[in-house]
């Protein structure tokens, strides 16, 4: 999944989520509209309330004016009433008249709290008792009297004699209780008449224009506004309920018709995707929906998946074939290097944090190069095929055999300790030993060196080291003539560590570059018959400020850094210097070890021409190891032949330590054969071995070669070697390597 797909997936939502978001948006929109509408209703209601309040104020003002007018008119009417005139003219019966005609007769409405007649002098015709009307009319014709938190309107009207006579007979005083009068005379729609009361305050006589401010009231709640609010609220609730039900139905409908089938389809497709390597799906529908489009889509997906599955299976088959080819060795059918790498990394990952006992076995055919060169590549290939087959058969069931290259094989044994690995390795060698390689034309016995590294592995870091450790062990087995199965031990790391010691590297490199340091030591080689020294084998040492470095410390560096040629040439130059310095007795031969690399150098003869003048005083023998000579024979033969033409003898060194094929020896351009120290020791072992060595020595001698026995350390060995037919002897019995050998022991070669 690329970054864009991840981004897309991360920001994608399910269809149900989108549906819910849509429904939520609708609900939110409705909520906003409803809220706005309700707010507008509230605004209208507020405006209506303000208007109602204003209307209430106006109504109250009109009512107040009506009451005042009514009081004035009632007083005027009263003033025109003939009986009032009668009482003012003849007041002797006033009390009776007032009681009977004004009070008991109930001539006035209930809000008229009192009526009194006053004489022209302003005094009441009778004492006023229990009324807010005064006993004496004041200057004010009209005023408001607040008494015991009640408001009274006091109105006086003059009583004239008659219509044509303006003489004032007296006054009528009328007392109205204001609030009841207002409620009765006023017409209230905006003012809530039930709330009209007098503001509390101290008793006082107040001007009439203060009337409105002395009242308190509340405006009516506008029924239209309230009803509109109720209608809108109820409508909103009803619409909200209907909308909610509709949204739920829409949600359920879309869920049932689309989302659920889509999700089922997605799950089914996911199952199909997950089971892409499984069986091809059937013909049933992915989902069953009431929507034709979904069913069509389902059919298309179904068909598409079937085709995809078929294609996938074809691709799997092809991939499997390619994978097998890519991970198999074409020659042997064993697993190849790529397979090894894959399996090894997989094993490392599996071993993460787990205890896993693993044995790593590395196989390498001994002298395969020689066999290949001897019998040809076709035979070599058949040998490799046979080895692969035999090794695979010898491994445990389930263990894989990997061909890492050439004649090198590896096997990784899981859950195997050292003993089990040893058993498997021995079984491999036994199977190889029993294999009739003669069938493919190989007469010599075929063996393999086996390096084993076993992990007690508590973590993968230990496993990682196994190939290197097995390689070191196999390298050790290669060098070991007797034990071809070698288990890795940490000492090998130390040897390897010496390779990389900075001291040895510096000294070896300096020596190879001709910067000095090479110090030749010479070990005598004596005649078996006379005991006189015939040659000295030049053995190289490298001296630095800390002392001498032995060949075992130096040559691994030379091998590793491919310093063979310059190092060998430095040795030659050092020997020349020693000869010129007369470190060697006159007439003593000099045996010089050269590597196959040097012997393959095209200009080697020219490089060594400096030795030619020395040949008159010191016969020169070039020693080349059996292995080098065999493996590089094709290339070194010309140089050896040329050297021999210059009078230089060729000695085959370490005969018996390697392949040691007599047939090889016959074709080798050598003059001298040096038996390895192990062959000399074999003379002291069981008779069969001794016989083999003795016969070999006899054949060498009969073929005309001189025979040097190395490693003679005892008189017994000297005797056996002499009896065997050795012409020359070398060993500590005759002298250790030294910088300047003693001249007395030197015997002239000639």
């Amino acid at each position, binding site marked *: 999944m690329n970054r864009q797909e991840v981004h897309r997936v991360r920001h994608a939502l399910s269809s149900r989520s989108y549906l819910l978001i849509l429904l939520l948006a609708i609900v939110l929109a409705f909520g906003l509209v409803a809220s706005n509408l309700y707010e507008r209703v509230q605004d209208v209601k507020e405006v209506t309330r303000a208007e109602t309040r204003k209307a209430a104020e106006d109504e109250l003002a009109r009512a107040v004016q009506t009451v005042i007018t009514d009081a004035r008119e009632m007083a005027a009417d009263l003033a025109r009433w003939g009986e009032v005139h*009668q009482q003012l003219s003849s007041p002797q019966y006033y009390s009776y008249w007032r009681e009977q005609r004004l009070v008991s007769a109930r001539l006035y409405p209930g809000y008229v709290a009192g009526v009194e007649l006053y004489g022209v002098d302003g005094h009441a015709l009778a004492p006023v008792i229990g009324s807010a009307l005064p006993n004496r009319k004041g200057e004010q014709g009209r005023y408001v009297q607040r008494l015991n938190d009640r408001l009274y309107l006091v109105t006086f009207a003059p009583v004239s004699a008659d219509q044509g006579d303006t003489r004032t007979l007296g006054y009528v005083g009328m007392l109205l209780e204001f609030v009841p009068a207002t409620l009765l005379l006023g017409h209230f729609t905006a003012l809530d008449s039930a709330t009209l009361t007098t503001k509390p305050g101290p008793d006082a006589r107040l001007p009439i224009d203060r009337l409105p401010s002395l009242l308190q009231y509340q405006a009516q709640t506008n029924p239209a506004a309230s009803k509109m609010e109720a209608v809108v609220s109820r409508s909103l609730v009803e619409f909200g309920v209907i909308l909610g039900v509709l949204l739920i139905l829409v949600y359920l409908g879309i869920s049932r018709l689309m989302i659920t089938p889509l999700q089922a389809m997605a799950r089914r497709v996911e199952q199909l995707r997950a089971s892409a390597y499984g069986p091809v799906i059937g013909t049933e529908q992915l989902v069953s929906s009431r929507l034709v489009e979904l069913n069509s889509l389902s059919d298309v997906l179904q068909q598409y998946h079937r085709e995809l599955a078929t294609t996938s299976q074809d691709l799997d088959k092809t991939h499997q074939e390619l994978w097998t080819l890519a991970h198999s060795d074409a020659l042997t059918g064993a697993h190849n290097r790529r397979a090894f790498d894959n399996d090894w990394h997989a094993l490392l990952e599996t071993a993460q944090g787990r205890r896993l006992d693993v044995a790593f076995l590395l196989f390498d055919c001994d002298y395969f190069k020689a066999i290949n060169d001897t019998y040809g590549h076709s035979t070599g290939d058949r040998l490799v095929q046979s080895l692969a087959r035999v090794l695979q058969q010898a491994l445990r069931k389930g263990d894989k055999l990997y061909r890492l290259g050439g004649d090198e094989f590896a096997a990784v044994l899981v859950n195997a300790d050292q003993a089990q690995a040893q058993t498997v390795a021995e079984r491999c060698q036994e199977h190889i030993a029993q294999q009739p390689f003669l069938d493919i034309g190989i007469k010599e016995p075929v063996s393999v060196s086996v390096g084993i590294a076993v992990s007690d592995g508590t973590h993968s870091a230990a496993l990682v080291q196994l190939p290197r450790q097995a390689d070191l062990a196999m390298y050790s087995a290669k060098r070991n003539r007797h034990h071809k199965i070698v288990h890795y031990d940490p000492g090998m790391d130390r040897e390897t560590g010496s390779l990389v010691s900075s001291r040895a590297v510096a000294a070896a490199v300096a020596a190879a570059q001709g910067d000095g340091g090479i110090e030749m030591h010479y070990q005598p080689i004596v005649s078996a018959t006379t005991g006189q020294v015939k040659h000295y084998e030049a053995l190289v040492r490298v001296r630095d400020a800390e002392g001498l470095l032995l060949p075992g410390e130096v040559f691994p560096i030379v091998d590793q850094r491919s310093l063979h040629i310059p190092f060998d040439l430095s040795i030659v130059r050092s020997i020349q210097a020693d000869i010129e310095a007369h470190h060697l007795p006159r007439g003593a031969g000099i045996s010089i070890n050269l590597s196959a690399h040097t012997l393959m150098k095209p200009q080697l003869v020219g490089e060594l021409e400096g030795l030619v003048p020395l040949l008159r005083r010191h016969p020169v023998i070039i020693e080349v190891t059996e292995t080098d000579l065999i493996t590089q024979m094709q290339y070194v033969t010309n140089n050896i032949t040329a050297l021999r033409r210059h009078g230089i003898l060729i000695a085959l060194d370490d005969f018996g330590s390697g392949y040691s094929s007599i047939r090889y020896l016959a074709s080798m351009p050598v003059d001298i054969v040096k038996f390895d120290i192990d062959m000399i020791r074999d003379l002291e072992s069981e008779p069969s071995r001794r016989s083999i060595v003795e016969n070999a020595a006899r054949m060498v001698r009969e073929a005309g070669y001189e025979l040097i026995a190395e490693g003679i350390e005892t008189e017994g060995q000297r005797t056996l070697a002499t009896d065997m037919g050795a012409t020359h002897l070398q060993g500590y019995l005759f002298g250790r390597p030294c910088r300047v050998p003693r001249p007395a022991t030197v015997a002239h070669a000639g």
Partner: protein
Amino acid sequence: MATINKPSRRHAGKAPGPARWALCLLSGCLCLGAQAAALQKQLDSGLTANAEYHAAQGPDAVLLLHGFLATHHFPTIQRLADELKDNGFAVLAPTLTLGINDRRTSLPCSALHLHTMEETLHEIRWWVDWLADQGYENLYIVGHSAGSLQALAYSLDDPNPAVRRLVLTSLVALEPLPGAKPTGASPAQARAWLAEGNDRIAEYDVSFCQGSFAAPPGVYLSYHAWDRDRVVRALADTPIPAAVIIGSNDQRFTGPAWLNTLQQAAPALRVLPNSNHFFDGMGEFALLDALLEELHSAPLRPEPAP
């Protein structure tokens, strides 16, 4: 007789009945129609009195007297005034003050009645004289109900010589309604108070004021004196020809016995069939016809005695 007994009030405690509303409306209309003829005079008693006066070119003038406690706006009076005016009579219809200055409305029974029968007769005399002073040669006094009684009473005491005839419609006596149980103070009590000099106000039974006529004892007794017998005697004693017109169904104030009494006491009695005390309805036309007949049949002014 009307019972409008208080100032016109918009907020009266008890709403009037439909008939009374119609009466008031009619009265109001007539009142408005008589505005042009309104007359206000200050009487020799010092009180201001109101009247409706329609002058005429001829010599004949009629003084219309309203009923007990009523005004000249009373419908029967107004119908008569209009009819007489249309027939060429000068018409004067005063509202008797009953002791109230500038009285414009009827007096209820419960009002204080401080004006005696004699003072009322004095006002009638003043108006008769005033009318005579206007130059009319032939005066006729037409009364209705108690107004007829007062016209009759006036005629007994030196009436103006120009008065030619009395037409007494729905003539009544000022005594309690026939059959009514006395509820007010008794005449004897009134006489006792009067004898004691006690002018206390008491409620008496006078005409339709059943136990509600509020007055000092002297005032009450001045009206109480005019009972049936006194009326019968007055009919016999009056020096002025008097015609009595009464409805056959007028039993409201005097009862059936009164009709019989009148038939014997009044030689010129007209009983208008199907008419009530107020000559409402078709009785109105019968009344007008009868009245005109009575006025036109009045004898000429008698020649002064040599």
